[in-house]
């Protein structure tokens, strides 16, 4: 990731985080405000529900009082109190309940046995737990032939003699009850009756009747029943998020603390969601604009900062490639970037100066070395020439009769030495005029085998024979190369190896196919080289041999590099030396000409 991208990312993140934080905080505050309003509204409704609950309870109680004072009930009470048969009043509760507008009514004997039941007439004779008279009104789940219902109940005892008749009347907690709560517009009030067989959709009723998607309330209802306290959650009756309700579930318990019903008060979240959507839209707009601004700012800033840096990087790459004459212009850069550019330019100019000095030094050193080698090379044939000439002079003076014979002999010697001098000079000339490789498709393995076969006789006919081993890869590709130059280079290496093994040994030539090159290893088991010798081995005129020109390996390196390849050496003194040649599979663009 470059600086421009980093700056862009940083600016964008800054803008996004800032806008998101503001949007979140505003949204949170809004939600809190709405939640508080919902809470207040729900609390009001719950209080209203409890008031309605008490009012209804009182009303039921009053109706039971009126019923207790009626002639019919007095007759029943008197009859039952004086040994009358309860069976005569089987339908009494139904008639009375209808007359006094009650959903539930049971007449209970002193022992709690049902004399008459309006809601389930067939339950005559069954026993009910005697109601607690200290409670004014209470909730109760009433068993019915077709399931059960939850009702608000009140009790009115009537004494007759020693017996007591209990009037247990109630009203069903149903849609009508919910409608009586007169909830504000938009508030959804739902009542769930706890059934016998888990959550059943038909047990959920709202003020308008059945609830469309009652199962949406199921988790909240279960939570309220489990915790036995008010719980709140968001309920989404439809797929539209705006139809969701902030719903509070209030468990309603009977006298024994069993949850018999759950009241759900749902406050619409449409206003809140609309506002949140608006805030989100504004935040997104501001964020988007911020990001665009960040892009522009980052482009401007990076234009000022990164352009010189990019130029510096490019110049550095050129320097690395060997072009030390490159310089960068600081343009409009200032401060550290300008200083950096100036430092870079200073550095390259110093590098160029140092390189020039080094080249000069090396050139001098090379000339010195050349002079030394030339002196050394030329000195050897010159000495016999001098001796021969001196012998000729002395023979003419001392042995004039034998002069001709000596002259002929000396002439031969002189010619031989002169020839020697010519050879030396030719070598130097050859080195200076190394030809460019003429590339053609070459099978390296065949080339290696040819080199090995040429030297085979020489290797065996030595005093201490040298064994030639070839490990040639079968999958070696054909590469573009000059076979003659390569042959010469490899022969040089084989001859070098022979020189390194006066006591015999082995030469191993390995070939490998590598990803982009073909490798040729030429290893000997000779005396080996020191690290310093390895470093200078390819320097022209450097030799470790007593009678070498120091041009052999220089020529080898020249041939290999002219092929676009590389040559290296690994050696361990006393163990042997390995020359490693890598030749490219393809002709490099800047490589040798075909």
């Amino acid at each position, binding site marked *: 990731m470059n600086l421009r991208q980093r700056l862009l990312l940083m600016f964008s993140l800054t803008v996004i985080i800032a806008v998101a934080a503001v949007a979140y905080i505003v949204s949170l505050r809004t939600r809190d405000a709405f939640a508080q309003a919902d809470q207040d509204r729900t609390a009001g409704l719950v209080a209203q529900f409890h008031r309605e609950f008490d009012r209804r309870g009182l009303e039921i109680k009053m109706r039971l009082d009126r019923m207790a004072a009626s002639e019919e009930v007095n007759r029943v009470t008197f009859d039952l109190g004086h040994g009358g048969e309860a*069976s*005569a009043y*089987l339908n009494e509760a139904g008639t009375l309940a209808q007359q006094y507008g009650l959903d539930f009514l049971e007449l209970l004997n002193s022992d709690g046995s049902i004399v008459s039941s309006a809601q389930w007439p*067939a*339950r*005559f*004779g*069954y026993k009910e737990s005697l109601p607690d008279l200290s409670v004014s009104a209470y909730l109760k789940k009433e068993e019915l032939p*077709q399931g059960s219902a939850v009702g608000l109940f009140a009790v009115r005892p009537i004494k007759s003699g020693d017996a007591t008749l209990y009037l247990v009347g109630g009203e069903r907690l149903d849609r009508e009850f919910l409608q009586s709560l007169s909830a504000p517009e938009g508030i959804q009030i739902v009542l769930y009756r706890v059934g016998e067989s888990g959550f059943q959709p038909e047990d959920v009723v709202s003020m308008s009747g059945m609830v469309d998607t009652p199962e949406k309330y199921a988790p909240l209802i279960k939570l309220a029943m489990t915790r036995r306290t008010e719980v709140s959650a968001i309920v989404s009756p439809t797929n539209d998020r705006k139809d969701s309700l902030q719903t509070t579930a209030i468990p309603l318990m009977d006298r024994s603390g069993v949850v018999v019903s759950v009241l759900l008060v749902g406050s619409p979240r449409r206003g809140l969601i609309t506002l949140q959507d608006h805030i989100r839209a504004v935040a997104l707009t501001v964020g988007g604009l911020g990001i665009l601004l960040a892009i522009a700012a980052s482009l401007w800033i990076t234009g000022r900062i990164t352009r010189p840096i990019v130029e510096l990087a490019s110049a550095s790459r050129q320097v690395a490639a060997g072009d030390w004459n490159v310089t960068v212009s600081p343009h409009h850069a200032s401060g550290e970037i300008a200083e950096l550019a100036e430092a870079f330019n200073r550095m390259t100019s110093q590098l160029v100066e140092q390189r020039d000095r080094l080249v000069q030094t090396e050139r001098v050193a090379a000339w010195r070395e050349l002079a030394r080698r030339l002196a050394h090379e030329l000195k050897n044939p010159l000495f016999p020439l001098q001796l021969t000439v001196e012998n000729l002079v002395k023979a003419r003076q001392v042995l004039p009769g034998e002069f001709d014979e000596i002259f002929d002999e000396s002439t031969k010697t002189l010619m031989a030495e002169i020839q020697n001098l010519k050879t030396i000079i030719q070598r130097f000339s050859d080195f200076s005029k190394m030809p460019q490789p003429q590339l053609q498709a070459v099978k390296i393995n065949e080339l290696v085998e040819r080199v090995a076969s040429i030297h085979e006789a020489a290797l065996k006919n030595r005093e201490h024979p040298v064994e030639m081993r070839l490990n040639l890869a079968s999958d070696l590709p054909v590469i573009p190369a000059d076979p003659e130059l390569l042959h010469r280079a490899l022969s040089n290496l084989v001859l070098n190896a022979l020189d390194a093994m006066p006591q015999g040994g082995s030469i191993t030539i390995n070939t490998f196919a590598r990803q982009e090159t073909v490798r040729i290893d030429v290893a000997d088991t000779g005396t080996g080289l020191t690290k310093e010798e390895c470093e200078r081995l390819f320097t022209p005129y450097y030799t470790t041999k007593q009678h070498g020109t120091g041009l052999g390996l220089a020529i080898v390196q020249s041939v290999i590099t002219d092929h676009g390849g590389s040559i290296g050496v690994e050696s361990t003194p006393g163990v042997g030396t390995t020359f490693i040649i890598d030749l490219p599979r393809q002709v490099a663009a800047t490589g040798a000409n075909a």
Partner: protein
Amino acid sequence: MRRTAFLLLAASSVFLFSSFANARTRPRQGGTLRVETQADASRWMTSPVRMLVFDSLTQLDDTGKVLPRLAIRWDSQSDDRRWQFWLRPGVRFHDGTPLSAATIVQSLTAQPCSACPWGSVHVAGEAVVFESESPMPELPALLANSRYAITRRDESGNIVGTGPFRYATNSNGAITLAAVDDSWRARPFVNAIELRGSRSLRDQWMDVSVGRADVVEVPAEWLRRAQQEHMRLLTSRDTDLIAIVIDEKDPAVQDSRLREALALSLDRAALFNVVFQKQGETTASLLPNWLTGYSFAFPAAPNLARAKELRSQVERPQEMTLSVDGNDPVLQLMADRVVLNARDAGIVVRPLTAPGHSTLHLTRIHVEETNVAAAFVDATEQLGAITTPPADDLSAVFHQEQDLLAKHTIVPLLYTPRAIAYSPRAHDLKLSSDGAVREADFWLEDAK
């Protein structure tokens, strides 16, 4: 002398008093008997007075003895597989058509009769012949049933019979049955019977109390109240059986232990004491005790412990459903009680609110027959039980009933009587043992 004169005076006084008394209770001719029912008047053929319009081939007396009616004698052949009935001569239908073997065959074959005990019925000279592949020892008794009353359609399409009253008019929700002057059973005292339908029980009782009706219905469950209100009542024998029919093919009750558990959980006494106010009798038998005398051999008391034990032997039984006949509120109340009783034994029964197939069906059947074997055949036919007709022998009927009830596919609960209340102006009204008015010798006090 004085003693003789005193005796003569006393004897003449007794004669005069008895003459006066006879004059006051002597039947009077004329008038209209006003009958009210809850059902629509057009359904008069199910009313208690239907057998005043129609006759059957035979009739049963209170002891179950078969007496002649339209048939004057009968004979069986081939081990009761073939019966021949000779007809009463001179009998005519209300439209003047003479009663003949052909009209009887036509009447008995007018409607498809899958439950009829005979296989075929045809004319043989002046006689009617019934044939069946299996013996029909109780056929003469069964033919007394009102289901087999002889009827035909006149040219106007009205149904006519041979009884002392004939269908006359239908107007303003009331049916009028007019007396037949030349009835073979002699002319009735009253001129007509007016049958008003769609009257609630409360209205009927009000009408009879204020003299607007002469005969009103009294259901068994209201009998005690009627008695407490000192109404004039005519009550039949216990002829209506309330029973639960269990569909043994239903997977919920295929295990007989569940059926038995259900039967043992039922508290018949509570139904008898509370719902029916101790009218009728609890029963675990198909036939009423007054008819067989062996009802006690079928224990009717609940055994909740055993019911629970049987129920616990069945793993995860399915829910049963329970339906009742029509919209009978009493049966509905009983059904609710059955649900409660079953629940006490751990059996879940759900009452059906809409018509449909149910595991259990609470039904009320009317058994007219006073002949044990015929009553058994009639009852089992109505309850849909497949049995072979028993020999006309109490012991055979008992064993057959025992075998049938041991399967727990029919659970008898109660036998109840039929009753009517009548006004003070109606005299000599008689209710036959099956709860119908069969004799037309009643009269009205204020008839002119």
